[in-house]
Each structure stands twice: as C-alpha cells, then as structure tokens.
C-alpha cells in the first residue's frame, strides 16, 4: 500500500499530488464549515433570543443541517420563464470560483497550505471581485425587480467597502514586507499585528462584514424589503450554492483577519492548525453575534460611513504607519 503511494508520487510529481490532496481538503473544509455554521447560526440566534434553536434531529439538533441539505438536494430546480438563461445559470457557479481560489493560499499551519504564492493576498483580493460580478449577473439575469435592486445595492456597497478593506491591509504588508500570507503569519512570532494596528483591524473587520453582506450591512438581501435580494428567483441546489458561498466567505474573511492581525496559526501548547480554527471561529462567532445585536443601517448611512469615515481614517493610518516605519 505504502509502496504504491510512493510510486504514484514519483510518477506524477510531488507538487501535483500536493495540489490534488490540498484541493480535496479544501472541499471537505468548505462543506464541513457550511454545515457546521448553519447549525451554529441557528443555535446562536436561538440562545441570544432566549430560545433553544434546533433540537429535534440528532443530539442538540446537530444533524439538522444534514437533513436540510438532503432536502435541498432533492428539490426540483425551478427556472422562471423570463430569466436570461445563460446568466442565470452562470451566477451560482461563478460565485464559487473565488471561494475555492482563496482557500489555496490560506495557511492553516506552518506547512499546511495548498500552495504558498508570493502574491498571496493579491490573489484573494483579485478573485473576491468575482463575487460581486456573480451577484450582479444573477440579480440582473433573474428578471425580477427585487433581485435587480439587491444586485445594484450589492455593487455600490462592495465598491465602497473594498477600498477601506485594501487600505487596512496595506500597513500590515508594509510591516511584514511581503504579500505572502505565510510570511505575514510568520512575522507575528513575537507580537500580533493587532497590537500595532488596532485601527486597521477595526476597519478591516467592519469592511469585511460589509463585503460578506452580513447583518448590519445586509442591504443586498434585506428580507423585510427585498424578499431575498439577488437570489430571490433561485431554488434548490442553485440557492444552496449561494448559501454555501456566503458561509464560506464568512470563514474566509475571519481567516484573513486571523492571519493578518491575530498571529495566524501561532499559539502555545496546541498545534497550529487547532489555534487557527479556534481563532477563526471566535471571529465567526462575533459575526453571528453582530447579526442579532445591530439593526440594519440605512443605505445612505452605509455609503457615507465608508466614504466619509472609513476611507479617510484608513488613509491616515497608512500614512502614519509608513512614516513611522521610514523613521
């Protein structure tokens, strides 16, 4: 058995095997994360509102998400009559590309990373723009006023919040002197960057809540005004692909925040990968907590907050960081 594996590795080459194994691992993490997070979200929501949450299927309702996903798999795929078919079919597939690409560069542990690319963070930021594009063509192709309004809002919001997101990561790149996520995590052996850059951390976190369309900024899918926003017309597995992407994006922004500000996989006693997941899920919990704490903001408040407060503050932060590093 062992000989066979070594033979295969020798024939196709180490890098290929590493990539294939890594991608399989990524799929497992994506699916496991989404299944666990739907359960966690409902449990957290329940307890914050003094309810219990799901409890019927399995112990503590743990199997509820499995039951739900089987139900979604079995559902008929309805295609409304007037949709722009190619765009309508393309959108749920396209939203998954950035999710998978992003996972390739995230360092889960010192050597537990699919591939260390020396422009790692740029890969994440570049491909995350595809999310907006897929929301746009999904909302536009649906031929539904709610979808269209949701999509337009999503684009305006993402354009506004992508700038502070980028600007808040730049001071860290200055300090670590590298675009590679592993180098950045390694640079925090002594002190976490959140100590040097508390303002950048806050800006990043606020902007990432907006980028993932989570609650205080969930205008693209505001249930009370827009039915379900851009994915109103999607059902069955197509809907669940959007859903999966949303939960994976929550994990991704938290993982980036952990890598950039909270020391990545570094921590005492426990192995790195355990620390990485503990920190990431702590941040994900904060995101869930936000949802049941803050009311939804108005659209003009949302845009004003980004353009008039976050962007100038992050520019100032960048300027001061650059100045201090140069002296």
């Amino acid at each position, binding site marked *: 058995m062992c000989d066979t594996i070594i033979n295969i590795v020798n024939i196709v080459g180490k890098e290929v095997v590493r990539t294939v194994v890594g991608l399989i691992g990524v799929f497992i993490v994506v699916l496991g994360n989404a299944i666990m997070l739907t359960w966690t979200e409902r449990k957290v929501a329940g307890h914050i509102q003094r309810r219990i949450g799901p409890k019927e299927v399995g112990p503590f309702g743990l199997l509820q998400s499995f039951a739900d996903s089987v139900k979604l798999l079995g559902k008929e795929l309805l295609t409304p009559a007037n949709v722009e078919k190619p765009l309508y079919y393309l959108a749920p597939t396209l939203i998954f590309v950035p999710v998978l690409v992003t996972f390739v560069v995230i360092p889960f542990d010192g050597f537990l990373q699919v591939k260390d690319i020396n422009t790692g963070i740029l890969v994440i930021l*570049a491909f995350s723009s595809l999310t*907006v594009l897929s929301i746009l063509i999904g909302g536009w192709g649906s031929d539904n006023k709610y979808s269209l309004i949701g999509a337009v809002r999503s684009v305006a919001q993402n*354009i506004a919040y992508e700038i502070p997101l980028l600007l808040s990561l730049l001071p860290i790149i200055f300090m670590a002197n590298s675009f590679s996520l592993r180098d950045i995590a390694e640079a925090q052996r002594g002190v976490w960057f959140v100590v040097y850059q508390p303002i950048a951390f806050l800006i990043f976190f606020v902007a990432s809540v907006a980028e993932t369309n989570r609650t205080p900024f969930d205008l693209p899918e505001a249930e009370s005004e827009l039915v379900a926003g851009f994915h109103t017309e999607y059902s069955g597995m197509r809907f669940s692909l959007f859903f999966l992407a949303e939960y994976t994006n929550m994990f991704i922004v938290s993982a980036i925040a952990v890598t950039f500000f909270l020391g990545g996989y570094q921590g005492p006693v426990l192995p790195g990968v355990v620390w990485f997941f503990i920190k990431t899920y702590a941040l994900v919990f904060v995101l869930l907590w936000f949802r049941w704490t803050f009311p939804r903001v108005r659209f003009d408040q949302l845009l004003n907050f980004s353009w008039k407060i976050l962007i100038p503050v992050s520019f100032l932060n960048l300027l001061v960081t650059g100045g201090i590093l140069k002296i």
Partner: protein
Amino acid sequence: MIFADAIFIIIVLVTLAGALMTVLSGSIIYALMGLVTTMFGIAGLYVYLNAPFLAMMQILIYVGAISVLIAFAIMLIGPLYKRPKEWSYPLKLIAAAVVALFSFFMFAKVMLKAQWAVLSKPFAISTKDIGRLLFDRLTFPFELISLLIVVAIIGAVMLSLYSRGEK
C-alpha cells in the same frame, strides 16, 4: 515544449473569444461578460510570462474595479438586453473599419520592426523590481499619470454637481 505551447494557445483563444464576444454580441451585458473573459485571458498571459504580480493587478483593476463599474452603469440605464444590436448606420461601420485598420497596421508595423531578444535565462520580474521602477526611475511619468487621474476625478465631481443643479 508541446504542453507549454498548448497552454499558450488556449489562453490566446480564450482572450480572442472574449474580445469577439465583446464586439459582436447584441446585448450589452454579454459584451461585458466578454470583456471580463478577455481581461482574465490577459491576466493568464501575464502568468504565462512569469509575472504573477501584474496578472493579479490586471484582475484586481480591470475585473474588480472597471468591469464592475461598467456593470453598475449598465444597471442604471435600464433593460437594453432585449434590443437587437443596431448595425443600421453605414457611417458607423465605415468609421469602425477605418479605426480598426489603422490600429492594425500601426501595431503590425511596430511588431515587425521590434528586435525580439532571446533570453538566456527564464524571464522573471519581482514585485520589488516593479516598485523600484515605478517609484525610482519612472517617478516623473508616474506622478504625471496621478495628476491626470486627479483632474479626471475633479471633472467628474464637477459634472455630477452641475447636473444636480447646484452651482
């Protein structure tokens, strides 16, 4: 190097297919999708040329910012996708042909005149080199471009203020 050539040809074909879709498709949103495909193709060419930083910048700027802005503008002007493309004006066709031929011959002349050096070692340019080039040797053109962009921004702000009726 059959494998590398095959990859190169695939990238070029994707880029050209995107460009053709941009020009020929009857609906403006499909034209945009074609443009996005072309931009990804060009990014792929940069990756092929061992310049991953440029490739990522290409996607970040042209797909992430410019295409999304174009899409945003399309959404604001209403549902044009049900209208067929207008080829009605012969003048339009003539103008397009003149511009296309002119640029084709210009590029052809430049490409045929250039001396293509054969590198002994694989070409590589790091992010650091690009930074050095931009902020050290080419500071003046870089600043000029920044000035141009500032002028454009101020102009856009002024135009939007005037159209709202505030003077």
